[in-house]
């Protein structure tokens, strides 16, 4: 509520009544739901690419030391070529670890009766639950049927089905009861206040199926809390960043995330986020061209990681002076052109009626521009001083 008030104060004159209403509803209501099936939009190839790129691939974070029973490492001698090959394999592995939990609609529980036999009424004093344990079936394909005391044979409700699956084919980490962290609201709130977002979401993915009501409620709660505390960096380069960005884009509250991205100088991601929200809400703005231009300028995560590896292996004397300048400033010429392009796109978004926190965003963009200008001047100066040809 406080944020909404703050927001209203910030852009009182230019706000659009419709959008503010939607955001107010979005932020005050903890149980945000997807009002229609988000699946086609989420599984769309372009959306997936945008979300994956936004997630970023920080290898230290993906392969951080985990406290698991076996975290042994292997040490090997390799040639540089072997090492690079192995490194590319590692990146593939990292991508697998960043697999996003699917975003699907809540599945309603339908009763499906197979047969009714009134002659079987009272055949026993408790019902029978039959589970098919045939080898090689997936959990969703596994048939669970219930014979009720009154003789009806029907497919089991989802809750029973999940329980039986867990009983006969346990999923590692899932509890057969609801963990107190999820059943007790205060404990969940405490976890969120301590910023254990990744832990809560990890546990949520293990404990619940993506189509369950609890999954939607709790993840919505986590994302709204995250939007208020603005600790987006905690989820960056984890598997939950994609669904989070999708959630914000869907519920028209991307501005805080956008601000965070601009502040951290992830302009490409900011452009992608805006493009995603345009795509979801079918806003008639041409974003494809900017995106493809930017994509051409950006190295893929694999290339970037490989580059880093190579620079680690090289001796400092072997590096060219140009690379050293890049390393000192942190940006290349390509980056500067990309920044210019994306800043233009972002400013266009801020100017449009879709942005809600205009003042804040404008300020961030302004600061970044000044910083970039300084860097550019330094870059040019250094180049000139070292006598590197301007290409």
């Amino acid at each position, binding site marked *: 509520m406080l944020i909404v008030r703050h927001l209203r104060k910030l852009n009182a004159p230019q706000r659009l009544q419709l959008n503010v209403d939607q955001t107010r509803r979005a932020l005050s209501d903890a149980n945000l739901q997807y009002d229609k099936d988000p699946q086609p939009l989420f599984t769309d190839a372009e959306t997936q690419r945008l979300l994956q790129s936004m997630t970023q691939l920080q290898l230290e974070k993906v392969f951080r030391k985990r406290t698991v029973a076996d975290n042994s490492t292997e040490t090997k001698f390799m040639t540089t070529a072997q090492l690079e090959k192995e490194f590319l394999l590692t990146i593939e592995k990292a991508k697998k670890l960043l697999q996003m939990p699917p975003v699907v609609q809540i599945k309603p529980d339908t009763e499906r009766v197979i047969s009714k036999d009134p002659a079987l009424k*009272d055949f026993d004093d408790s019902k029978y639950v039959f589970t098919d344990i045939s080898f090689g079936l997936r959990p969703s394909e596994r048939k669970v049927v219930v*014979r009720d005391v009154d003789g009806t044979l029907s497919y089991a409700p989802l809750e029973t089905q999940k329980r039986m699956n867990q009983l006969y084919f346990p999923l590692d980490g899932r509890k057969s009861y609801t963990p107190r962290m999820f059943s007790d609201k205060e404990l969940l709130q405490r976890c969120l206040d301590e910023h254990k977002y990744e832990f809560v979401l990890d546990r949520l993915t293990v404990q619940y199926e993506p189509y369950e009501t609890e999954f939607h409620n709790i993840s919505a709660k986590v994302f709204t809390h995250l939007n208020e505390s603005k600790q987006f960096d905690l989820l960056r380069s984890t598997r939950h960043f994609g669904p989070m960005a999708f959630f914000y884009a869907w519920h028209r509250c991307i501005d805080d995330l956008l601000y965070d991205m601009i502040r951290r100088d992830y302009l490409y991601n900011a452009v992608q986020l805006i493009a995603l929200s345009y795509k979801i809400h079918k806003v008639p703005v041409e974003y494809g061209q900017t995106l493809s231009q930017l994509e051409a300028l950006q190295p893929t995560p694999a290339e970037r990681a490989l580059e880093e590896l190579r620079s680690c292996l090289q001796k400092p004397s072997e590096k060219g002076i140009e690379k050293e300048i890049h390393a000192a400033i942190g940006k290349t010429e390509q980056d500067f052109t990309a920044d210019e392009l994306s800043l233009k796109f972002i400013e266009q978004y801020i100017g449009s009626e879709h942005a809600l926190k205009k003042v804040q965003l404008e300020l961030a963009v302004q600061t970044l521009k000044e910083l970039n200008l300084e860097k550019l001047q330094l870059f040019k100066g250094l180049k000139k001083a070292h006598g590197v040809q301007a290409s």
Partner: protein
Amino acid sequence: MSLSPASGIGRFYKHSAKIIRFVRHGCANRPFYHIVVMERRKNQHQPVIEQVGSYDPMPNATNERLVALNTERIRYWLGKGAHMSDPAAELLGIAGLLPVHPRTYMNAWRNRKAAAEAAATEAVKSAETA
């Protein structure tokens, strides 16, 4: 005694009579059954050819009796001409895999009758006290 694996260790002749039956595990006052395929002539605690399911006859906290059936293998063995023991046939009938066993209908009828009689005597008693 450790349990034999589900893809049993029991030895059998090719043309001997096989049967799908219960084997009682669990302990005193706590029955638990494995549904297994074994040679008909053998004692229930001999090694089995294959385990095809389990049956817990004691209702759990939500008042359900849990049965697990490897339907694929059951159908295979039935197709091979395996026999069925009566309790196993009853259970598969309740599961809807086979036609409902006549004994299940008999039990249901008896239970209904007993319940109706109990209700009648209860009604008479309450009428007397009133």
